[in-house]
């Protein structure tokens, strides 16, 4: 199960499992967000390389317009994936407490 949407503060919230089957839905949503965005991953349990591709494509699009994607509440498993992939050098990332 995967869900993505805005919360009342305008933060994008992703929940569940972002795998190759769900990546197109995540990409469709993120293709429509403008400028500088915060993506809260606190309720995201799992992300594969398909999800990494979605984040990278979105971040590049936003950066080209002077914005970007900030990732917050990242759990340790997903943060490991970010580190292995070099995403820690590409994104502003805040890990979960």
């Amino acid at each position: 199960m995967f869900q993505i949407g805005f919360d009342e503060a305008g933060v994008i919230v992703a929940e569940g499992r972002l795998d190759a089957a769900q990546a197109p839905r995540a990409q469709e949503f993120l293709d429509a967000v403008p400028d500088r965005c915060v993506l809260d991953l606190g309720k995201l349990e799992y992300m594969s390389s398909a999800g990494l591709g979605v984040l990278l494509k979105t971040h590049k699009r936003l950066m080209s317009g002077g914005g970007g994607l900030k990732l917050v509440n990242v759990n340790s498993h997903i943060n490991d994936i970010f580190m292995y992939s070099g995403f820690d050098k590409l994104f502003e990332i805040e890990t979960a407490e």
Partner: protein
Amino acid sequence: MKKKFGRSFDEISNIVSFTDTFFEQQDVDASLRYIVDLCVEELFVNMVTYNTETDESILIEMIPHEHGVEVSLTDFDVERFDPRDASPVDVDAPLEQRTPGGLGLYLVLKMVDSIHYEYRNRKSKITFIADRK
């Protein structure tokens, strides 16, 4: 424990359920779950995406290993593809040089404790071991 899965990304949720059952029945260390889920998905997706010359289902087998789990994925009637020969990924490249894709097998090779490849009679079998640290 083994089961065949159709060549569709929609099968990923069924693979997760299969893995749930294996971890519960075999009492496998839960700390290995993310690695197993990720590596199985990446290898399965790679087979579905690139081995398009067959309609055969993909066989996934999981057995307990001394300190963890041994997982095999077998693709039938396909060309040889050893994941250890995958193109390297420059994870230090700047954003403008990074493109989506190519990270799946890189992550598998980075995260498993060992990986073995066997190709015989057009049967392509990848086996990896994930051990408790």
